[in-house]
């Protein structure tokens, strides 16, 4: 039973790591952008630009946050 639970846990953790990784805001932004693209497309609005724009914006924000976090960790004390 324990090995089954361990297997299920490992499977869930694999997908969590695959999708979310080290910054959950990236996955959340992508999900919102997908939802927005779907909504705009259903409304008949040209929406191909939304996904690439969201990708570029969240990558920039996430990198900026990573740099600040990394340098905070590097500081002694």
């Amino acid at each position, binding site marked *: 039973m324990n090995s089954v639970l361990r297997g299920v846990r490992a499977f869930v953790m694999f997908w969590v790591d695959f999708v979310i990784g080290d910054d959950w805001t*990236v996955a959340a932004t992508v999900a919102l952008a997908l939802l927005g693209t*779907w909504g705009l497309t259903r409304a008949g609005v040209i929406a*191909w630009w939304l*996904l690439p724009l969201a990708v570029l914006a969240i990558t920039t924000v*996430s*990198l900026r946050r990573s740099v600040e976090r990394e340098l905070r960790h590097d500081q002694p004390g």
Partner: protein
Amino acid sequence: MNPTVLLAAFFATAIEVIEMVAIVVGVGVARSWRASLVGASAGLVVLVALVAGLGTAVRDVPLTPVRLLVGALLLVFGLQWLRKGVLRVARDGWGVGHSAPDVDSADSGERGFDWTGFVLSFKGVSLEGLEVAVIVVAFGAAAGAVGSAVVGAAAAVLVLGALGGLTYRLVARIPRRALQLFVGAMLTTFGTFWAGEGLGVAWPGDQWALLALGAVYVVAALGLLRWVRHWRRDTKHRTAQQRATSNPSPSGMHQ
């Protein structure tokens, strides 16, 4: 044999096969060849089973939700790699990781079988393979020449697969850090394109939008690389200034 159907199937499937080969080679070089090839083989097995089971009804398989699922997963994973690649190249430079074991084994699956590499290749091959199957059935059934369409598609797989096999040594010469950045950009490109298609987006230029998206992401990654270096210098400078202001050291005593 119908040469028109054969050629049409060859060229129509070539684009899908290029995408398939790019993912398998990229994942193989950047992560693990074993996982990438096992993933690709598993994708082919699922595909063959699907085609054998459904026959010409494979045309009715709903590709839209498959594209959305595979695209969204590739997009979020590709973005992780793109960010890591930018951060690491900005910190260590382009050359680190060249012809050396990967510095970060968590990204390469060195601690056993690389399931992430397996899933990436599996998804790429099964989705693109399914599209190839649909093209073959559509072209072949429309002209009453399924055999010619199958030969055309098989030729595209063989020719482009062989090209991928020949070019992998060149790709393998790219340093790991740079490869992580570029494969991340490639996965993000395919992910954006497929997820968009799955949502019913009409990409300007159709398949050519892949090239435009790839170029935009690579240029953006190179620009972000410069920004990250600048942010690092800037933040370090600010931190040093804050520390000097809060702890003024008697520098004159050392002179």
